[in-house]
């Protein structure tokens, strides 16, 4: 009755909003609007995904969209202002054809799936007691598909390494420091974000949450720290960064190899200690994801700057 109709209206509104924003984002002539609208899409998308019973994805999207992507895109926008490539875009026909083809192919692929049975939820539920956690998504990430997660941590690390090859980090932020109000805001928000990240990590075993959400939240806290930093620079703690950023890969490799001695298979957690091992692996992954994402926002290898008052002076 009422609730169903309202839910349907909400779904349609959310979906239509996302699509309208998506198109607005790519057709607007204003580069800033492109960035601003994209940040808006992330926020609406987070709400939309909660409607699709994916609160854990919504958590990750909220932290990434509101905290990290926004900062990254805005920084890139500010630095490339005035040096746009080429003349204003006038092409219509080719892109439209491509878009229509893409959508037609995707639609044709999806259409048969409308009435089909859903995937593996039942299978996962049946084997959940072999994993040491009781939340299916976390079980998939660190147990059934642990190899994927390991490789994904490697991708993160590779992205960071590649970014560092581009040279020393230049100040991301050129505007001057805010007054006391913003500092007070950070003083309150920062510890709350850290607590929230810890809660997400811990909850991951039983309910939506886990290493990705916690890592993205912590990284957003890192962005806040960067924002109150007067110079817009990060200290050159090269070894600490390296260790933290590679902690996830190291933990997965180390623990994964270690359990081979017991279970005979790489990354196959022994049932008796699965809960504890998964928690250790997830914590390491959280630290790694947070460090890597925050350093990616910095966008270069942090080095000691000339004229900067550092410890070595």
């Amino acid at each position, binding site marked *: 009755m009422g609730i169903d109709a309202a839910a349907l209206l909400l779904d349609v509104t959310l979906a239509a909003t996302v699509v309208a924003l998506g198109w607005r984002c790519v057709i607007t002539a204003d580069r800033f609007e492109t960035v601003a609208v994209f940040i808006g899409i992330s926020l609406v998308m987070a709400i939309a995904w909660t409607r699709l019973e994916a609160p854990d994805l919504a958590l990750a999207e909220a932290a990434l969209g509101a905290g990290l992507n926004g900062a990254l895109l805005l920084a890139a926008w500010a630095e490339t202002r005035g040096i746009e490539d080429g003349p204003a875009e006038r092409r219509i026909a080719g892109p439209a054809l491509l878009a229509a083809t893409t959508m037609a192919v995707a639609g044709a692929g999806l259409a048969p799936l409308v009435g089909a049975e859903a995937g593996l939820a039942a299978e996962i539920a049946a084997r959940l007691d072999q994993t040491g956690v009781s939340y299916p998504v976390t079980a998939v990430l660190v147990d059934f598909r642990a190899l994927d997660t390991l490789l994904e941590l490697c991708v993160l690390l590779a992205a960071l390494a590649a970014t560092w090859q581009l040279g020393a980090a230049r100040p991301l932020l050129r505007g001057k420091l805010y007054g006391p109000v913003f500092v007070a805001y950070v003083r309150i928000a920062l510890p*709350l974000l850290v607590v929230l990240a810890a809660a997400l990590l811990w909850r991951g075993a039983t309910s939506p949450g886990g290493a990705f959400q916690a890592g993205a939240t912590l990284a957003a806290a890192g962005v806040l720290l960067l924002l109150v930093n007067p110079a817009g620079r990060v200290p050159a703690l090269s070894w600490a960064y390296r260790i933290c950023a590679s902690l996830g890969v190291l933990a997965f490799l180390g623990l994964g190899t270690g359990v081979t001695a017991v279970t005979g298979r790489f990354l196959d957690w022994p049932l008796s200690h699965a809960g504890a091992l998964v928690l250790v692996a997830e914590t390491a992954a959280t630290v790694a994801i947070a460090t890597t994402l925050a350093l990616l926002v910095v966008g270069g290898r942090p080095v000691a700057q000339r004229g900067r008052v550092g410890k070595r002076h």
Partner: protein
Amino acid sequence: MNSIPDVLGALLVFAGTAFAVLGTVGLLRFPDPMSRLHALTKADGTGLGLCVAGLSLIARDVSAAMLMILLWLGVMLSGATAAHLVARRLLARQESAGGN
């Protein structure tokens, strides 16, 4: 669904959403940036506050209510901070425009 807290809660939530809509209208209709900012912050605080109060009544769950109050404080905090930052920038811009 008919007990007094539920009805009261639903009314509060409705009032809160009404405030949010009004704030949005204000954001669209008010003439200058400063008054738009004003409309926005009022709607922010009051609208969400009413929603939180109403939902807490409906939920009858202390931890959920506490979380929502914390959340409301967080929104007030970040809303006030953002409005302050934007207002400062607007003032600075006005000054530099006046100086020229």
